[in-house]
């Protein structure tokens, strides 16, 4: 089935197997290996990308279901040679070790920073909370890191958070 989507600002038209996930489309057909396959079941977050600006597990989206969408992967976060502030902060704070969850953490953080509203740890749910370390940790808990870089991930995101 033929679909067209914008990937990191570039229109791509591809003929895809109806069983193919967006993640496999990116990795196996478009050569964008930044989105990682950690579980293929939406349990680890390594495949997180932005679909129409919202963070999503690309392993849970069938490629045919994102026809017409705008997809941003970790490869699309930087502007030319200029890294996204989150990318720089992750390097500065040593917010990764093996690096396999990192693209998902970065896309998830980029999406998270644009998400208003309370979380499970927000005291007053009527007011948009400050992104305290506790709020960041809660909102980033869909992205597993087995190396255990969470302490540094929270401090890296905290540096960029408004």
């Amino acid at each position, binding site marked *: 089935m033929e679909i067209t989507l914008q990937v990191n600002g570039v229109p791509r038209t591809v003929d895809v197997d109806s069983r193919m996930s967006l993640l496999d489309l990116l990795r196996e057909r478009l050569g964008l290996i930044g989105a990682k396959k950690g579980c293929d079941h939406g349990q*680890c977050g390594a495949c997180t990308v932005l679909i129409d600006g919202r963070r999503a597990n690309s392993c849970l989206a069938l490629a045919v279901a994102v026809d017409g969408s705008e997809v941003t992967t970790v490869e699309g976060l930087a502007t030319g040679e200029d890294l996204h502030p989150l990318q720089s902060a992750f390097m500065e704070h040593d917010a990764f070790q093996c690096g396999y969850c990192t693209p998902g953490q970065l896309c998830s953080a980029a999406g998270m920073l644009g998400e208003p509203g309370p979380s499970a740890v927000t005291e007053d749910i009527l007011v948009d909370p400050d992104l305290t370390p506790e709020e960041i*940790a809660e909102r980033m808990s869909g992205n597993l890191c087995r190396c255990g870089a969470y302490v540094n991930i929270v401090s890296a995101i905290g540096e960029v958070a408004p």
Partner: protein
Amino acid sequence: MKRIEGRVKVTGLATYAAEYPVENVTYAYVVQSQIAKGRVKHVDDGQALESPGVLAVLSCEHPPDLAEDADPELALFQRREVAYRGQIVAAVVADTYENARAAAAAVRVDYDPDDHDVSLSADHPGLYRPEVVNPNFPSDTQKGDVEAALADAATTVDVVYETPVLHNNPMEPHAALAYWDAEGRLMVYDTAQGTSPSRATIAKTLGLPPERVRVVSRHVGGGFGSKGTTRPQAVLAALAARQVGRPVKIALTRQQMFDLTGYRTPTIQRVRLGADGEGRLVAVEHMACEQSSTLVEFAEQTATPTRVMYATPNLRTGHRLVRLDVATPSWMRAPGEAPGMYALESAMDELAYAAGLDPVELRVLNDADAEPDGGLPFSSRNLVACLREGARRFGWERRDPVPGIRREGEWLVGTGVASSTYPTRRMACRAVATMRDGDVLVRVAAADIGTGARTALTQIAAGTLGMAPERVHVELGDSDLPKAPVAGGSMGTASWGSAVVRACEELKRDGKEGRADTAGEIEADAKLARHAFGAQFAEVRVSSVTGEVRVARLLGVFAAGRIVDATLARSQFLGGMTMGLGMALMEETVTDEEFGGFLHRDLAQYHVPACADATNLEAYWVEEQDGELNPMGSKGIGEIGIVGTAAAIGNAVHHATGHRFRELPITPAKVLLPRF
């Protein structure tokens, strides 16, 4: 120093095993045994072979040529016997991943099943004493008369601690991409913690001379031991590529990883301690029951840390193994030390309470000035300094030892401590350093699985040469480079770094090139007990309503020789402690008693710590000079962070609730049980 590969990792350009752009690639997908024991009667691949895009089906119906002495876990399709549920019985190769997966589901396998036994118990009739435990320790040791000393002791503790099956679960699933070039040389992009050992194993399994095989692992998405030995996907990719004449890629699914990539054996450990009236240990006994498969004897060294930790005139340790119809256990971060120190350090806490002593003071009182078993002197031992420094930073002196009395609303609050230890070793390694246009190229087949090996070795080389790190370039992750040992056993930096220092020293003399092989140097190392030590302090909050345990604070202080890089070291200590937190509170793979194999097969069932579980962690170290280790004076730090964590948290849960939970993990259901 910032990680050298940081930029490629944050921009998504770092290439892992399954990600190399290889023309004409095909995909393999495995078919796993549905029975735990028995025989494959027949594999019907007719429907699969007719499925779209299918190129081949591999199974025991047409056994591929493999070496007769191949490791039974790697000897794919050689035998009809099934040793465990989930074992690979067939594999499909197709033009796309979707086609391979669909066709694998169409392979029909008929079995002659036998009754299976997958349950470890302390009274299992099959328990036996292995000759040695990993890597090469005696199974049992005995000094003095433990029974007599226990009978005379002022205070005794006799407790059984249990740990479950644990899975490494690195974020990157095990994968391989293999092809045979025009000269018949095999190329494998593998998820390997060491390309030299991976090449040796793959060559041996296929019956090839090692020089006909090249293994490349430039980036590895975590391993924690599970990529330290070659796993079947690497052999399968090579076999399938030979059969279809095209490159073959295979990435195991998260579910398949639970069966095929090793796990930490469950343990049942009995610890008996006896102390005199002042709290000095007069007897220590540590016996561990654990499992292996019917294929391979893998005997985890669970009781060995007790041979290192505390001074006592009477000491007995031992291991009993039972061979079950299960997959072979394998290496997982701090094998032996992690489960063993959970039991010993929990029992020490119980002894402190039984003797009316502070848990820190009990450990200080029983510090050893030579290895308790065997009497070897320590190259350095700063356990007491870690305990003192940790207690100071944590605010331990304010602690009221009475358990179960601190309540904040629904939350019960408690604190606990435990010691950590891990052996310090190094293995023979080669390296070459070459001057090139004023810069230095260092080549060594080391592996960076997230430890920061590139960065650490760059600093070691730059330090030796007296050059800026920017002018040193380290090449690793390729078996064509000078032969190097595995990234495992906390030996990587010590082994590779020794060779890098020697190669750089020779380069300084020669001006053009320096070559090193540390085999002779290491053989000449003095016979000493070399270990890193540490102390971990935990504060937990236990909900009296839900039974949930939250780790409010976790603080570790370590004595690990000279720290090569503060940033990398802190990250590794914290990472180990985070995994230890998971071991304490959530990680567990439940065995399927009825059908064999495991009931937990993904990350929704096997819980690892998430971001909100592990944010208030701190890691520090004490100054330690040790000239008996290696040219860097460093001790390995990859594993000690997980050692003792579970005990510190468990001891804090006791302090909070007044109950001892002696089976990991300490889940809400277990915490609530004493109330009913």
